[in-house]
């Protein structure tokens, strides 16, 4: 493999990982607070639709982003209402949100734009364009580092940089701030938080809202940065892959980033691997590689490698004991 191929795969790994990273970090906030969230997929989808729709009508990518965030937060609040206030089953609520998102985007898309569920193609200022970092062209010819800087690090959308900056920020919030301490506590033992005089409900709602904001970014990236508009079911299971990455990384921010990069790499590589023939086996089906994140996660959950320890109070509605 020559350097160009490596740079190519690396750049596309970064791009593919970005929505996973936003979504996995979104799930991290929610699940660390004790609210399991299987609806990352649905929230990404509704955000992708809302952002593309507004970006197309207003011509502004930033307005699109705001619409995406708003839509995802609304869906988050529905999940919060069901699982925090009404103490419902978090998995059922999440699945319902996924269904609603899939149906709603299709119906509204057809009703508003009549393009078979697509939104109009975005161009110019209605998309997040690649940003060229300083000196990207100047250093292009420096051996090895040059192409990596100009081809991988530079030339990504603003949202990509934001996603990767969210990783250290999340670590800092979780382990260095009062909010983070309480967030981690409420996912482990909400009664301890309650008796310490802190509102379990408000804490969990805040976590769920943050989850909505970040899935908003994830969805917007898909339709307004990576692609040029919304297409039906464009999330294509990324919400579940993000969830798998979150579990794979044991609900910790920095490992989440590496898990997303790994899963992103598998995705990016699967295109190129299709032409590769292995002796005896023949060509590797792309699906086999795309299935790897799930296979790896199942292996991890089954306890073969290390151990996944979810937040102890996760999935359990908090009820004051009598």
């Amino acid at each position, binding site marked *: 493999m020559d350097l160009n191929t490596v740079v190519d795969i690396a750049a596309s790994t970064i791009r593919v990982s970005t929505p996973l990273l936003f979504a996995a970090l979104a799930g991290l906030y929610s699940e660390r607070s004790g609210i399991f969230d299987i609806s990352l997929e649905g929230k990404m989808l509704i955000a992708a639709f809302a952002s593309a729709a507004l970006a197309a009508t207003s011509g502004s990518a930033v307005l699109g982003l705001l619409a995406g965030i708003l839509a995802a937060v609304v869906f988050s609040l529905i999940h919060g209402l069901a699982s925090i206030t009404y103490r419902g089953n978090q998995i059922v609520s999440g699945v319902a949100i996924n269904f609603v998102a899939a149906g709603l985007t299709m119906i509204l898309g057809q009703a508003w734009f009549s393009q078979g569920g697509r939104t109009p193609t975005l161009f110019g200022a209605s998309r997040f364009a690649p940003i060229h970092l300083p000196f990207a062209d100047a250093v292009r010819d420096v051996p090895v580092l040059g192409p990596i800087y100009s081809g991988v690090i530079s030339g990504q959308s603003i949202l990509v940089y934001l996603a990767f900056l969210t990783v250290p920020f999340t670590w800092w919030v979780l382990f260095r701030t009062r909010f983070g*301490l309480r967030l*981690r506590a409420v996912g482990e033992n909400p009664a301890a938080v309650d008796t310490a005089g802190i509102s379990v409900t408000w804490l969990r709602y805040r976590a769920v809202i943050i989850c909505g904001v970040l899935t908003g970014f994830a969805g917007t990236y898909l339709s307004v940065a990576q692609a040029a508009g919304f297409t039906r079911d464009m999330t294509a299971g990324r919400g579940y892959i993000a969830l798998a990455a979150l579990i794979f990384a044991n609900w910790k921010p920095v490992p989440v980033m590496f898990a997303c990069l790994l899963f992103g790499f598998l995705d990016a590589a699967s295109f190129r691997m299709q032409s590769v023939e292995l002796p005896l086996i023949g060509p590797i089906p792309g699906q086999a590689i795309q299935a790897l994140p799930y296979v790896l996660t199942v292996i991890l959950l089954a306890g073969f490698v290390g151990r996944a320890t979810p937040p102890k109070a996760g999935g359990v509605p908090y009820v004051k004991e009598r």
Partner: protein
Amino acid sequence: MGMAEPAIELIGIDKRFGAVRANRDISLTVEKGTIHGIIGENGAGKSTLMSIIYGFYQADSGEIRVGGNRVEITDPNAAIAAGIGMVHQHFMLVDNFTVVENVMLGAEQSGLLNSGIARVRSELKRLEREHALDVDPDALIEDLPVGLQQRVEILKALYRGADILILDEPTGVLTPAEADHLFNVLRQLREEGKTIILITHKLREVMAITDHVSVMRQGEMVATRKTSETSVAELAELMVGRRVLLTVEKGEAKPAETRLTVDNLTVKDSRGVTMVNDVSLQLRAGEIVGIAGVAGNGQSQLLEAITGIRRAVSGRITLNGEALDPTKPGDPREMRRRGMAHVPEDRHHMGLVLPFEQNENAILGYQDDKAFAKGPLLDLDAMRADAREKIAAYDIRPADCRLKTANFSGGNQQKIVLAREMERDPDVLIIGQPTRGVDVGAIEFIHKRIVAMRDAGKAILVVSVELDEIRALSDRILVMFAGRIVGERGPDASEGELGLLMAGIDEREAAE
């Protein structure tokens, strides 16, 4: 109650949960700088009252005064602000947090943690110096023994500046030595002018450490006494409303042939930790053998291995003369068929299906019995007739075999399990925690039944964390510590001697 300054006063506190009136018109004055015991049976309303003081619930009516001023305690924050701290029965700690993080939670000082961490560390050092409350600030809670976890709970309250400290059943999880240390800490806190409210059902503790004691019964505060002017007998009577036997009347045991032999049994738990280590014991017809020990020393796994619920790693079990291999996957039904009955330690977890009707639970495990079968179907009439008989024989209330089991009180639920297992007329009866969460009246009844089974020639193994119960029931006492039987004593062994054994210290060995 004397001239002393009140730390906290409750006036006319009333609280309902649906149809249940958990607290009725409760008034109570606790003097500053004293240790005040609150005793009562399970369900007497002690915990509800304390939860009201701590702001976990709001009273329907009544008022609370702290230091003479009326306060509205709307949530735990308000209680903390009023200087009230609480050590809950089930610790309110985050297991994968360090001691520092737990102490800090809810009292972090600022949005960033750094300054708070420094403050907690220096405060912990001071509290450690002043109160002999030392604990490693960087240890994870899950790595600490329960005695130290409780210490963290006390530190949490003191760190928040509590002047009034409420402890809810603090000694349930402690060894006698740990309990003594706790009492020393409490006495010292009293010397410093702190006020301590101690909720317990252990009368001996009340006598040992409190200055005053209040008795609750069925949601009412029935009496308050100076501890020096009352007695265990009077308090017990006030709690139950009638005289109770604190000891079990029983004659000499007449042990006959060996029914159950356990040889060199070793059992690991699901994490692979050895919980039962090379345990051997014999159980003969007509005797009660009690296993004493602090919870978590392998008693549960021993019971599960004997009753065929859990596979042992090695060892042999002989039941009614037949050798069984406990390292094969167990079969509780087979054990039952061979004449063993089992009252599990945790009736909610293993003994009962709470949403089932009483009559369904009354045949659980015996549902294949021909007596309850009508072809392939259950014979509901036979089941209900059988259940009604047991309800009458064991005085189970309410006497309604169609009632959901969850709606019975703890004592009556326990009687449902006991009736089911005892009425099968087993040769060997294995009972875990016969009276956990059962009120005093029912305890007496259950103990009498167990002794009657012994006198009828049954071999009975009792595991209990209540030392009083072990001493009252057993003809022989085995003490379990860290997975081993560390000693055998007669029924007349002193509490002190057993307590030391439970902590792994053998006095007789030490003397040699």
